[in-house]
């Protein structure tokens, strides 16, 4: 009943506007009007498949043209959005409008998964034997719906290490060699306490802060929890009873840790400027963060990467390819998505754009293991982030309300850490009020 009303409304509106315009509505070019979820992968008809990506997935025209070798009837076209926010608005708008105009293969970011997994029926189930065991569980689990559908193939990941300024370390009398730094921070079994303790040693001898932003630390802490804000069944833990979140909050807003903070909001103007002013000595640093660091640190030498992360492994960011079910060539699109996310192609993408591949097999590839980053003192980034990737043990569960709740706490942290307009107690009360307003 509900569905028919909506369809009826949309169709009437469409018919009405067509009549009004009195234009002979030319044949729809967009796959998507006809909901023929899962056309057969008939491999003789020439078809064109579109892939919608954002930022830079490393899919060059030459790379896409390679698909023709094995699929002579398929032409692959790519549409690129500049920023992930643009792509997100685009995707949600088109899904809300019924799926018209969507590409055959749509790239998404890990942060959008909670709401997309909720509407798993809008996407093709991508499970197949071919891609079994291609990824670690932490990559596939978030993209799996409650009833076991896999809606996205992983492209890249953001395994986290610690980036540090060896010149500032040296001035403060700390070791500068990346292996020694990793050891100093606790090595294999590094804890957050180790990280803050070394920070204290550093801060006593330096004018620079130890880390850039308490918000970033909190995010990493929360990302190492399997159930941060919601239970396994998706029900939300009332924030007032949420000891996990409160402990993490208390840690980053405590006086000791606040003394180590540069009090910056990431991506803000002040944060960007702080790179030039020796604002902080270390950063939690997913593989892709090496780019922004290099860009903001023009003229500064001394950045390096240590193969260590407090509290076990951590992941921040990464993307997937999905296949909207409304597409006319859904099955062929699934094949293409599987090919694009295969280890060998993702290695090529890594060579093109530096996106760190999420396929376990790709980690052994010499192209990856041999990768060095000149700006980071020739650190063997391929190897380091490969190790960091292997260290990720926890898959944080993110239900539909994850980000709403998360925002209430991060806003409180911003008040304490960046704005310094409230003390930890008051700000937490503010978070509880904001949580109450969510009406969950």
């Amino acid at each position, binding site marked *: 009943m509900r569905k028919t009303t909506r369809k009826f409304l949309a169709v009437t509106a469409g018919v009405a506007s067509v009549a009004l315009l009195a234009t002979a509505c030319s044949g729809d070019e967009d796959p998507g009007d006809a909901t023929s979820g899962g056309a057969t992968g008939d491999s003789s008809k020439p078809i064109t498949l579109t892939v919608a990506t*954002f930022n830079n997935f490393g899919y060059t025209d030459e790379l896409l043209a390679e698909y023709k070798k094995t699929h002579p009837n398929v032409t692959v076209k790519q549409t690129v959005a500049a920023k992930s926010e643009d792509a997100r608005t685009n995707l949600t708008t088109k899904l809300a409008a019924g799926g018209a*105009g969507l590409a055959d293969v749509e790239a998404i970011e890990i942060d959008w998964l909670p709401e997309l997994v909720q509407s798993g029926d809008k996407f093709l189930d991508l499970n197949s034997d071919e891609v079994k065991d291609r990824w670690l569980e932490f990559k596939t689990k978030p993209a799996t719906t409650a009833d076991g559908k896999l809606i996205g193939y992983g492209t890249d990941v953001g395994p986290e290490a610690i980036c540090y300024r060896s010149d500032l370390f040296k001035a403060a009398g700390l070791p500068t060699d990346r292996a020694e730094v990793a050891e100093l921070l606790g090595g294999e079994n590094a804890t957050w306490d180790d990280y803050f303790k070394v920070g204290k040693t550093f801060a006593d001898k330096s004018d620079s802060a130890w880390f850039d932003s308490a918000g970033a630390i909190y995010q990493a802490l929360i990302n190492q929890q399997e159930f941060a804000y919601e239970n396994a069944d998706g029900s939300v833990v009332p924030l007032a009873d949420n000891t996990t979140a409160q402990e993490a909050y208390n840690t980053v807003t405590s006086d000791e840790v606040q003394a180590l903070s540069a009090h910056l909001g990431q991506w803000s103007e002040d944060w960007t400027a702080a790179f030039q002013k020796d604002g902080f000595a270390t950063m939690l640093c997913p593989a892709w963060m090496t780019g922004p660091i290099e860009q903001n640190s023009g003229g500064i030498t001394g950045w390096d990467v240590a193969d260590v992360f407090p509290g076990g492994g951590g992941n921040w960011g990464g993307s997937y390819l999905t296949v909207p079910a409304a597409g006319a060539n859904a099955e062929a699109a699934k094949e293409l998505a599987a090919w694009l996310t295969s280890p060998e192609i993702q290695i090529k993408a890594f060579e093109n754009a530096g996106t760190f591949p999420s396929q376990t097999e790709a980690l052994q590839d010499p192209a990856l293991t041999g990768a060095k980053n000149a700006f980071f003192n020739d650190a063997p980034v391929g190897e380091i982030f490969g190790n960091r990737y292997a260290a990720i043990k926890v898959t944080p569960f993110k239900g539909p309300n994850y980000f709403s709740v998360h925002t209430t706490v991060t806003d409180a942290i911003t008040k304490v850490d960046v704005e310094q307009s409230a003390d930890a107690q008051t700000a937490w009360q503010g978070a509880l009020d904001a949580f109450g307003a969510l009406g969950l």
Partner: protein
Amino acid sequence: MSSIPAIQQSAGKGAARAAARRANRKVGGYDRRPHVVIYVLLALVVLIGLLPLYYTLVIGSSDPVAIAQKALPQLFPDLSIFDKFKEVVNAQSFSFWQAVWNSVIIAVVVSASTVMFSTLAGFAFAKLRFPGRRGLLVFVIATMAVPTQLGVVPLYIVMSKLGWIGHLQAVIVPSLVGAFGVFWMTQYLEEALPYELIEAARVDGASMFRTFWAIALPAARPAAAMLALFTFVAQWVNFFWPSIVLNNQNPTLPLAVRLLQQNYFVDYSLIMAGVFLMTLPLLVLFAFAGRQLVAGIMAGAVKG
């Protein structure tokens, strides 16, 4: 005394303009050259307006290291910006000339239709009496109060039903005529077009449309020139809606310029070079339209 419009009809525009100038010169009081203080004040206003453009040039000719280090990497732009221009024009991810062409089509078509339909509607609202006039005008203004953000989903549905997604008409058609233009022309003609002129034309037996064509249109010229300019610029820098219905296979300039930053690694000098290239046609347009505007105002000042 024969009025300027009469001269225009009998002896052409040039003569009319000359007559207007003469008439102005004869009168001593109002048309004397203004005091130097006024120039200084205006210069300040223009300087503040120029700063962003200047800044885009400076950033465009600096290297990323310098941009990261200083808010103002160098005092003056230099020739290196031309290398950036080349890079923008030859970008891999989109066809620059296609983007320029699309932007030109959209801006020209939308400006022309906006001016035409707005002047027609403005003439009717301002100078003709018909049942429901006031209510309809209020309704037109009310449509401006609809928040654009929320119209996106339903408007997208309409466009996809028409099969226009990815085509320029998805951008052009919704903006063929807007409430702003209708309201603007109504208010302008209210003041600038004396009833006597219309009545005279009607007494002479001119049809409604001829009255519009011969009386209202000339009177509306300065406002029309400005509306065209505003509409052109607004379409030229429009980003949000085109980004939803078009893509980089068929982009407009703002979409293309934004594509220059498709990386974690943003090269601001490249983006600013793109921004400047994007603004350049508008500056050229200004040089032309500006003269038109001044001339239009001179010729279009209809006196009763």
